[in-house]
């Protein structure tokens, strides 16, 4: 606020000096001019009286002639004073009002207020750059999770939209160019409460600059950037530490997977959807010749993906007419990808193509949310929206990074394995999307020690599923995967094992998961709302700086999908569960109450206190 005051004072310098001079001359005049008192005796006004009279006269309040009626000389002086001083005030006030409407001043004031509000934030928050469609969806989703959002957007009109959105807590917004480092700094990315910087502007290069700026300003804060340009992706990978979100590549991936293994797509969509929403139906796209038309940026990766499945495809970039479609082989095509950057073009293209080949499978790109009715008329087999890809990806890597890794894994699995995963998910959540959570055992092993007690056998995965109210009963939750820091004993019988994420990332694909994502795991630090708090059992959350040291980097992490229920858990294990939301809380009770596992193993309620243990003739522990 200091700089604002300074600016105001500087702009008011002239009017203030004018006012002071006017007052001084007026007061001096009143003191100098002799008056008379009630008895007609000569009387001189004191400075205090003069100041009092000028004050109420200059501000047009006008209490009258105090303490004695004025002489004519005094009245003449006062008359002059009225005109001059009122003008002086008008000048001063006019300057103030002008200043308050001055765009430069308003921007400075807004920024100052913004900086103050960010500085006062004492809860976890994310910085979102760009309030386009995906920016808005991510902001809304974070708001629903109870995470504060600090928003940087360059377009004031978009910022105005923030005010009318039904956020539970309004994002802290600044109209600013996030490419400038000072904007990022003002948005508080270097504060310990800042959990992530998410660059979601429309422009790849802007996102790149934001990402690099954020990394340079604060190497600890996690950075995500939406970037589709392969060249920029490469340069960012070189730079390191930025998690790239590439909706176009993801679109190509989904297209490819829909042709090879639709069940994998279904699993991915089920797990990424909001818990409780209806499970997406699995529909495969036909194999054969595909025609891809529209935005070149979009269809090139898709073309590569389709060709990689061993099918034929031809692309037709740019403006597309009937001839272009025919030339691309529409007459023998089984499917069409309409990916122009205008929704009307896409719908037009689809109806044109359907006239030629009515049985065509259609994948359509939707550009604007408000064009939903238009897109619906195309009755496409698949609708692709960029924001629909970005939001789940951002959220899952913020809240359940393990899920993001699991989904990466699912994409590479053979179909029968994916089928088993799908069946397992269905067994716990039916035709709805399940609630997903990570159960994390503390690396020091305190939880395991407490739960095992004196028993020789370690905690088994199945024991995490027991019902704390009735331990012999097993709760309907599905352990989808176990992530282990290093390959410990007890799980070697597992067929489902893959190499650490680093090797896989090196093997191919986008750098969808940076090393940073692996290191910044704990969700408990991100989100305070009880619903999202992980079933953390130890208090060994990695320190903010500690997470970045290379020593802390898990060298060989292995992920097992569909772990056997007999798997013995080791300290530091992370288990990805799917099930109903309340089961996470029941599971937390299992992890905090040692009597549950004891009851499960012995089949009877264990004696709880020392006296009763002695009474029962058990060894003390």
């Amino acid at each position, binding site marked *: 606020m200091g700089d604002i005051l300074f600016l105001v004072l500087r702009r008011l310098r002239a009017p203030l000096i004018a006012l002071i001079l006017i007052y001084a001359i007026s007061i001096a005049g009143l003191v100098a001019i002799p008056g008379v008192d009630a008895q007609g005796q000569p009387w001189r006004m004191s400075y205090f009286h003069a100041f009092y009279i000028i004050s109420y006269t200059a501000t047009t309040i006008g209490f009258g002639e105090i303490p004695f009626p004025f002489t004519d000389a005094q009245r003449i002086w006062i008359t002059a004073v009225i005109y001059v001083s009122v003008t002086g005030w008008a000048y001063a006030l006019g300057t103030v009002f002008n200043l308050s409407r001055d765009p430069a001043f308003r921007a400075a004031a807004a920024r100052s207020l913004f900086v103050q509000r960010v500085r006062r934030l004492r809860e976890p928050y994310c910085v979102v750059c760009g309030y386009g469609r995906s920016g808005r969806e991510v902001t809304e989703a974070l708001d629903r999770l109870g995470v504060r959002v600090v928003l940087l957007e360059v377009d004031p009109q978009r910022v105005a939209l923030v005010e009318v959105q039904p956020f539970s807590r309004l994002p802290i917004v600044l109209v600013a160019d996030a490419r400038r480092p000072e904007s990022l700094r003002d948005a508080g990315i270097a504060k310990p409460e800042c959990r992530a910087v998410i660059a979601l502007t429309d422009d790849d290069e802007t996102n790149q600059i934001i990402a690099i700026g954020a990394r340079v300003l604060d190497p600890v804060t996690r950075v995500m950037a939406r970037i589709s340009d392969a060249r920029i992706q490469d340069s960012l990978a070189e730079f390191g530490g930025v998690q790239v979100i590439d909706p176009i590549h993801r679109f190509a991936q989904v297209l490819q997977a829909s042709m090879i293994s639709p069940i994998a797509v279904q699993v991915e969509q089920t797990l990424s959807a909001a818990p409780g929403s209806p499970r997406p139906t699995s529909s495969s796209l036909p194999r054969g010749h595909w025609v891809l038309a529209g935005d070149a940026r979009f269809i090139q990766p898709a073309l590569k993906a389709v060709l990689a499945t061993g099918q034929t495809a031809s692309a037709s970039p740019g403006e597309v007419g009937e001839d272009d479609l025919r030339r691309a082989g529409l007459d023998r095509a089984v499917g069409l990808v309409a990916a122009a950057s205008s929704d009307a073009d896409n719908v037009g293209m689809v109806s044109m193509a359907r006239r030629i080949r009515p049985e065509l499978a259609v994948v359509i790109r939707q550009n604007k949310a408000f064009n939903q009715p238009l897109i619906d008329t195309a009755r496409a087999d698949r609708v692709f929206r960029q924001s629909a890809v970005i939001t789940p990806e951002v959220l899952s890597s913020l809240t359940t990074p393990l899920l993001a890794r699991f989904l990466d894994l699912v994409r590479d699995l053979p179909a029968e394995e994916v089928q088993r995963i799908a069946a397992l998910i269905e067994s716990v959540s039916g035709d709805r999307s399940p609630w997903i959570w990570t159960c994390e055992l503390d690396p020091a092993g305190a939880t395991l020690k407490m739960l095992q007690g004196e028993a020789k056998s370690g905690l088994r995965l199945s024991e995490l599923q027991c019902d704390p109210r009735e331990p012999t009963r097993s709760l309907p939750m599905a352990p989808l995967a176990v992530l282990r820091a290093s390959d410990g004993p007890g799980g070697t019988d597992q067929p489902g094992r893959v190499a650490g994420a680093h090797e896989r990332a090196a093997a191919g694909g986008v750098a969808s998961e940076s090393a940073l994502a692996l290191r910044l795991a704990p969700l408990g630090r991100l989100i305070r709302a009880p619903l999202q708090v992980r079933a953390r059992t130890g208090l060994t959350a990695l320190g903010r700086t500690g997470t970045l040291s290379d020593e802390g980097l898990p060298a060989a992490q292995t992920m097992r999908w569909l772990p056997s229920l007999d798997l013995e858990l080791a300290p530091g294990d992370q288990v990805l569960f799917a099930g109903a939301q309340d089961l996470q809380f029941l599971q937390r009770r299992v992890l905090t*109450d040692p009597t549950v596992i004891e009851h499960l193993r012995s089949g009877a309620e264990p004696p709880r*206190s020392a006296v009763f243990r002695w*009474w029962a003739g058990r060894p003390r522990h």
Partner: protein
Amino acid sequence: MNLEKVIFGFFVVLACTLNFGFFIGDMTRHELHHPGELFAAVVVNLIALVLKFGDRTQMGAIHLGTSLAACLQLVTAAVLWRWVSGGSDEPVPVSTLATVVSLSGGALVANGVSVVLLIGETLRQSR
């Protein structure tokens, strides 16, 4: 039925009821506060305290805390009574009696919390 639960519940509730029995009545009237009742309350509270030792659950920790609070107040009340009366059969001054009874009132609150915990725990787990 679990014998442990029976014994535990018995002592926790008895600690509370004896405490209440001593506490109830006008603070300044000797005939309403019998020292024998205070003695019984102290003994039963101490037993309840010992029964709570060694429980590793969270609930157990809070149970132990409430019992410690109750015992602290009741023992203080008993010691104060003995100190002022000096072992004679003369009734203690009214001010002392009021202090003793109000201390037992504080212990009653702690015992009440203990009983609430017991009920809550029982309702929560159906095993």
